[in-house]
């Protein structure tokens, strides 16, 4: 595949490049998420025990299957950079779109911060040198990946595809090298997860575990951000997203099985590197080093995808003048939203230096869940305003409205789970979104051109 990168100012317009295929969509989605298997999901064991971590793995998997189905339908129809932002703008309205874009930017930037902290801490733990801090590794991760993103989307996602595939294969290798079919040799599930300790907090622990169960899959919906750069969005986006979801369900199940069979839940719940620890506990230096490298690669892939997604959401806000239009510049040579990438870089760096991993993850999860709540209502409105048959959809998800209802109920449960332990943070975040919404609605919106926001060649929505 050769794409000439000559200064491409055709006519008097510069736009993002349409160069990506389904594999890139998969790499973007799974790349962002896979780090969740290397850290983060295991905090759900802390909140509810090992069995709770498995239960939420499957139930939250159901939540995300709904997310992937709903998202595929809407985004294969509204194919624009910004993903859920452009969906909200066409279906719900400008203020909702503004909030959704902020959810996206926060969820991805905080996820990027978590990835960088994870990478820094992993290297420091491996080195074991006194006085070595994680700051230099954090800075290098964020700056190098921002640079890669700055230089072009195709290379960025080609890199992501390769490192995500390596990280994924290492989980598969770990799974098969501990002879998963025989318990007792390496794996000791029935001695580590006993009827007495499987649910140490009872069922309320299972509900509480939902919060970090989100981390098994958070970010898969980011595939839609690539909509404007995919060659055939109506086909590639549903395909890449669904393939990604299946990949992740398999990885999550393998990760739980291996980790819960190797570590007591109290340790599993607090370690930052469950898979690397699993590698160590097998006693094989080869596996230990493989999982060490895979942890780093997964963190890099995730941060890389996050920079890509956050920058596109921010770029879209500028393009519609929801924020100063200065942000909507496209690099004439690399065809990337370069000013948005540069703007978000110091913000990510600052938080990576001041926040800790657990907190950054919670910020990210909160913004994610707010977004899923929106998605469940959004799809209902989409089907009502443009019923099947009124516009051409790239993909139509089955069993409507069941996935939307399931998604909404699971979001409510997750909010309750966040309340159990992180309630004040949730209230602070929502207060922020509320204030910034007032600012947008009563002040900033006056700079926005009304009719221009609706860019899809659709008929008038029903009921208006």
């Amino acid at each position, binding site marked *: 595949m050769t794409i000439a990168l000559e200064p491409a100012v055709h006519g008097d317009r510069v736009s993002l490049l349409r160069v990506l295929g389904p594999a890139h969509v998969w790499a973007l989605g799974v790349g962002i998420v896979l780090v969740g298997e290397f850290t983060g999901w295991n905090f759900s064991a802390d909140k509810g025990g090992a069995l709770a971590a498995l239960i939420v793995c499957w139930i939250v998997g159901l939540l995300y299957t709904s997310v992937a189905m709903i998202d595929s339908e809407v985004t294969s129809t509204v194919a624009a950079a910004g993903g859920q932002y452009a969906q909200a703008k066409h279906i719900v309205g400008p203020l909702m779109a503004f909030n959704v874009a902020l959810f996206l930017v926060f969820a991805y930037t905080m996820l990027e911060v978590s990835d960088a902290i994870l990478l820094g801490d992993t290297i420091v733990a491996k080195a074991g040198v006194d006085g070595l801090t994680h700051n230099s590794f954090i800075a290098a991760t*964020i*700056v190098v990946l921002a640079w890669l993103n700055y230089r072009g989307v195709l290379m960025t996602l080609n890199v992501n595809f390769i490192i995500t595939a390596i990280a994924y294969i290492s989980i598969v290798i770990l799974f098969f090298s501990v002879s998963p079919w025989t318990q007792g040799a390496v794996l000791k599930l029935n001695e580590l997860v006993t009827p007495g300790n499987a649910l140490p907090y009872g069922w309320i622990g299972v509900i509480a575990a939902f919060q970090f169960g989100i981390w098994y899959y958070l970010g898969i919906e980011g595939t839609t951000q690539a909509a404007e750069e995919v060659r055939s969005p109506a086909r590639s986006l549903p395909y890449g997203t669904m393939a990604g979801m299946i990949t992740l369900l398999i990885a999550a199940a393998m990760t739980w099985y291996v980790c819960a069979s190797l570590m007591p839940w109290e340790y599993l719940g607090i370690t930052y590197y469950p898979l690397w620890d699993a590698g160590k506990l097998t006693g094989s230096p080869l596996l230990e080093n493989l999982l060490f490298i895979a942890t780093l690669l997964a963190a890099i892939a995730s941060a890389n995808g996050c920079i890509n997604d956050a920058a596109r959401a921010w770029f879209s806000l*500028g393009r519609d003048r929801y924020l100063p239009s200065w942000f909507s510049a496209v690099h004439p040579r690399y065809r990337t939203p*370069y000013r948005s990438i540069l703007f978000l870089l110091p913000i990510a760096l600052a938080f990576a230096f001041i926040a800790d991993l657990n907190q950054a993850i919670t910020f990210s999860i909160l913004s994610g869940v707010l977004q899923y709540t929106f998605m469940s209502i959004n799809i209902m409105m989409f089907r009502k305003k443009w019923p099947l048959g009124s516009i051409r959809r790239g993909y139509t998800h089955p069993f409507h409205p069941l996935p939307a209802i399931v998604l909404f109920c699971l979001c409510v449960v997750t909010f309750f789970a966040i309340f159990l332990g992180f309630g004040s943070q949730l209230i602070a975040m929502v207060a922020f979104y509320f204030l910034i919404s007032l600012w947008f609605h009563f002040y900033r919106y006056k700079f926005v051109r009304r009719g221009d926001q609706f*860019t899809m*060649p659709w008929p008038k929505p029903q009921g208006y």
Partner: protein
Amino acid sequence: MWVALSYACWGISIVLALWMLYDWFKVDTTYSEEVLTSSREGELEAVSEKHRI
């Protein structure tokens, strides 16, 4: 070795950050703001995707 790696990381970060700043400055002074911010949402859909049945 790890300490050396740490310094190398700082070095790479600074070099790449400076390069991006330089390139940003160069682009912003070479091209007009109208060209840079000329991307429009849904431009290609209007041509390539027909939303009629």
